């Protein structure tokens, strides 16, 4: 089956982001495919390259990046949610004259059309919030 995930949970608050990641890992282990993982609202913080995690806790950004690179999974940050939260790739940083790009390269910034497209292409659409 083809899965897409919608991740609304912040990586900094609660367990939702890591839960979504572990679910995604299990999807692959059960031989399904992941069409796309779409991060929206607070979920976009999963792509924050400047985030510094305490040593005894999950480095959620890196965990997501490692997963995406290993399994060639598309991680998309919703552009409007990302901009509001100071998450900019180099193009957006230049456009808005901000000092730094702050999105981890494993993530791509795009619009809600990617979520809609993913839902059309997927057998399962799973939401992680809170």
């Amino acid at each position, binding site marked *: 089956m083809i899965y897409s995930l*919608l991740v*609304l949970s912040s990586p900094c608050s609660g367990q939702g982001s890591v839960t979504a990641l572990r679910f995604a890992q299990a999807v692959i282990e059960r031989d399904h495919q992941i069409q796309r993982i779409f991060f*929206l*609202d*607070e979920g976009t913080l999963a792509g924050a390259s400047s985030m510094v995690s305490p040593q005894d806790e999950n480095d959620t950004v890196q965990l997501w990046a490692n997963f995406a690179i290993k399994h060639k999974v598309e991680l998309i940050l919703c552009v*409007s*949610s990302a901009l*509001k939260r100071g998450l900019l790739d180099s193009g957006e940083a230049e456009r808005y004259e901000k000092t730094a790009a702050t999105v981890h390269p494993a993530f791509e910034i795009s*619009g*809600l*059309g990617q*979520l*809609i*497209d993913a*839902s*059309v*292409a*997927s057998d399962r*659409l799973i*939401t992680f*919030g809170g």
Partner: protein
Amino acid sequence: MSTINKKSLLVVVRHSPYGSSLARTSLEVALSSATFDQDVGLLFIGDGVLQLLPEQDSSTIGVRNIARLIASFPLYDLETLFADKAALAQYGLDLQELPEKLQLLDDDAMANLFKCYDHILSF
């Protein structure tokens, strides 16, 4: 963007208009779905019905107006709207104040509604 296959989407909104960013996000997802010509329904449940209050003046808090966004739905052919009858009654919302095409549902009808769509997006 592939539109050869369509999937029907139910957007479920449970949050009040200005207490978090989720209200606006959920409506933008519904509008996007309609813009991309998907079959989309929107269910306002629990505190989500508070988004339907008509006289919102969000300029007082410096954010975009949710009521105005909802009023624009017909322009995008987003007209399949459902609301939680019990929550509307709990908050004393008068039918006359609500969008014309809003369908009021009790708990059983809302439970049945989930079965009618291919995917549910939960906000």
